[in-house]
């Protein structure tokens, strides 16, 4: 990779903050941070959940007002920025959950607030042309005419990126941008980021995926407990030192799975699929899921991975093929039926499809199985808290308050609560769709450990993930999907390149 600093001859600070502070009540989110964001540089911003990364992004991009400190943009000092000012200064944050108008089309979102007009009337032809051009610039293949709500999270993110570029952003914050992207889309995004930096823009890249930091950043700022604990060129760091700086402690080593063969030869599948299909989305899926194994589902966005998970969980019905669960025909017509049969899904879109934001931790946990947490239809907070207590303890949900509402929890703890609801229902088959998307390294290691624990207790785990490292680290077997079909199935140990090839369309079949 070329060094953009030299290409542009430009390491000038576009944004410099000094002694920036933000408190939320008694909690210090950012406690006096100074850093520079330089033109032509990709700056990695890393840290565990709650370290203050997202707050920093909010402070600089204007969505959060600081309690102290200064923000200097192009030599001009500000005590605080609002989103509009930040936007006009060219500062834009690409969010984890893109801020788009769900009911408007992609094209409309791309030009929102800047609609091209002729004689005061919106020129739709120009809107479409401009939208297509913006998307083409980032090499995104997103239909411009459909409503944003019909897009996958990955495509929404691409639209968000395109929209901000269209608005003339030159200081861009990417907050976990690859969480929902497949390998090819990720590579395209990286190329785009490199191009942006080379053209003199400043990019701040927030990610939990350390290998990405090493791949595209020139400098890394590590935050912990609201403070910058390291600010160094990427060349002076390696993965261990970075993790140690983030966590302030040794990361628990991944526990790798024991032998796998014993299973496939001796254990009968708990869930079997034969020729399962649904329209053109899914075609002829054969799958055997065994108790005590992690069955990875690989595939890029649009491969049918999520659709398959949904069918297993009773959200949709398959229109061909057979499913059997413990030897009996399994054709759930609703999630309620699937849950009674012991098949639980923890969805990808956990916050919008999982959490009850205005209900307590305890209610969230017991919701799927009120028969275990009520007396003749009556519940009380105490009874719920008692029923959920052991699980909240096991998952280490903070704060330790079963009555705390879902809304008040941090992202990682919300994930745990949604996961906890599935565990409370005593799953035989647990389907995890992108279980570590957007969580910090600590929580990720914890979820991985939990998955291995569940497996050792005899649960069958179906792990759908676009994070190939996660899949290969956890799975006993990986089934690869592309365009609604199974293209390959591999036993551990895995060869990432062959999985990638199968996921991106090469038809090598193996078992």
């Amino acid at each position, binding site marked *: 990779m070329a060094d953009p600093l030299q290409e542009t001859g430009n390491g000038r600070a576009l944004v410099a903050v000094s002694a920036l502070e933000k408190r939320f009540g008694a909690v210090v989110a950012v406690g006096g941070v100074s850093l520079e964001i330089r033109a032509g540089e990709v700056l990695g911003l890393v840290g565990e959940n709650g370290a203050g990364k997202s707050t920093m992004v909010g402070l600089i991009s204007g969505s959060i007002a600081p309690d102290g400190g200064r923000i200097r943009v192009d030599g001009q000092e500000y005590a605080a920025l609002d989103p509009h000012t930040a936007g006009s200064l060219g500062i834009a944050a690409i969010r984890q959950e893109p801020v788009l108008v769900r009911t408007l089309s992609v094209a409309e979102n791309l030009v929102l607030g800047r609609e091209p007009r002729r004689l005061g009337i919106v020129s739709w032809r120009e809107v479409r042309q401009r939208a297509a051009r913006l998307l083409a610039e980032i090499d995104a293949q997103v239909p411009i005419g459909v409503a944003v709500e019909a897009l996958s999270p990955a495509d929404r993110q691409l639209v968000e990126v395109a929209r901000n570029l269209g608005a003339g952003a030159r200081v861009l914050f990417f907050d976990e941008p690859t969480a929902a992207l497949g390998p090819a889309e990720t590579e395209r995004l990286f190329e785009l980021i490199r191009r942006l930096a080379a053209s003199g823009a400043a990019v701040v890249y927030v990610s939990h995926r350390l290998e990405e930091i090493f791949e595209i950043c020139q400098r890394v700022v590590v935050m912990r*407990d609201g403070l910058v604990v390291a600010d160094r060129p990427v060349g002076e760091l390696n993965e261990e030192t970075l993790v140690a700086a983030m966590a302030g402690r040794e990361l628990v080593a991944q526990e790798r799975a024991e032998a796998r063969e014993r299973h496939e030869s001796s254990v009968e599948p708990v869930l079997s699929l034969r020729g399962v299909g649904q329209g053109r989305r899914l075609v002829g899926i054969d799958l055997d899921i065994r108790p005590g194994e992690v069955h990875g589902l690989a595939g890029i966005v649009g491969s049918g991975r999520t659709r398959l998970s949904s069918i297993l969980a009773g959200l949709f019905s398959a229109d061909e093929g057979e499913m059997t669960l413990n030897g009996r025909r399994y054709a759930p017509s609703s999630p309620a039926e699937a849950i009674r049969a012991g098949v639980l899904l923890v969805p990808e879109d956990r916050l919008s499809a999982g959490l009850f934001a205005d209900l307590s931790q305890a209610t969230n946990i017991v919701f799927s199985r009120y028969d275990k947490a009520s007396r003749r239809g009556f*519940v009380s907070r105490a009874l719920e808290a008692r029923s959920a207590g052991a699980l909240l303890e096991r998952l280490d949900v903070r704060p330790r308050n079963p009555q705390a509402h879902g809304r008040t929890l941090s992202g990682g703890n919300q994930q745990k609560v949604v996961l906890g609801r599935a565990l409370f229902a005593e799953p035989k088959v647990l389907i995890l769709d992108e279980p570590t998307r957007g969580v910090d390294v600590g929580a990720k290691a914890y979820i991985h450990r939990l998955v291995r624990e569940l497996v050792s207790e005899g649960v069958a785990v179906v792990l759908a993930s676009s994070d190939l490292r996660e899949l290969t680290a956890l799975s006993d077997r990986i089934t690869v999907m592309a365009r609604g079909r199974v293209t390959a199935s591999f036993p551990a140990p895995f060869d990432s390149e062959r999985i990638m090839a199968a996921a991106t369309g090469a038809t090598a079949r193996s078992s």
Partner: protein
Amino acid sequence: MVATTVDVKEVTLRERALRWAAPRTATLALTGVLLVLATVTATRSDVFLTFDNLRNILLQISVLAIVSSAMTLLMVSGGIDLSVGSMMSVVAVVAATMMGSGVPLGISILAGIALAIVIGGCNGALAAWCPSHPFVVTLGVMILLQGIAIQITSGVPISNIDGRLLSVATGRLAGLPYPVWIAGFVMLCCGLVLRYTVFGRRLYALGGNEQAARLAGLRVKRTKILLYAVSGFLVSIAAFLLTARIASAQPLMGSGYELQAIAAVAVGGTPLAGGRGTIVGTLLGVLLLGVISNSLNLLGVSGAYQYVLQGGVIVIAVMSQRTR
């Protein structure tokens, strides 16, 4: 993680008070508005604070209180039923017609209740399968039922109501009229259902995040049908109380109750989107509406201004909740 943990024991009294008050801002604000209104009226009118007048207010709001309780359940779940007013009219005129043609009182009332439950269940089914918000589909049902009520009565009030039913409106227990007790009981039950039953939790979940509720195993359609049927049942109670109070069954007797109930529930802090809200809030909302019209009467404000002021207070009360 470390930075977000707060030691509970070190929290000062003031912070505890704030923490207690934060989720209750709507309730507290509404209580404040009520107190101000009552104080102002009390200083201008000797009658306001008399027991007779307060009892009168309670009697006047009892029907609305029942309809609003039903509406609270619906709105907490993210639903709504605009047809409750017309449903009251239909239930009352059907039962009154039956009584008029010699059917015994008890059977007529039971038939009315059963009819309301069926209509409610149908509304629930429509809400469950209708792709748009139940607001629209129940608006259709509201107009439809209104037509039926007028057709049944040919537009003429039915006034030969059984005396035993009428005595419900006039009888008293411990100084308070029966309708007040009944409304209080209904509110208490709805409050308990929302707070202490699985069904209640499901309504909050449904209103808060329908997709998540479905995925978590809630039978969404079944729950909606049951909910609207329960609402229909409560509405039928309101219909008979109103019949007893006005001593007749009229084809337009219930119209307007749906909007007043929605206003009371919204003023009480339940958002149209659902997922939140309490019966206590609704009670305050209903009281506010009752106290406003009583105050304005006592202060001799003309009818037209009463509407203006009542509407204004609703707007202010709802806007003041947006600070959260």
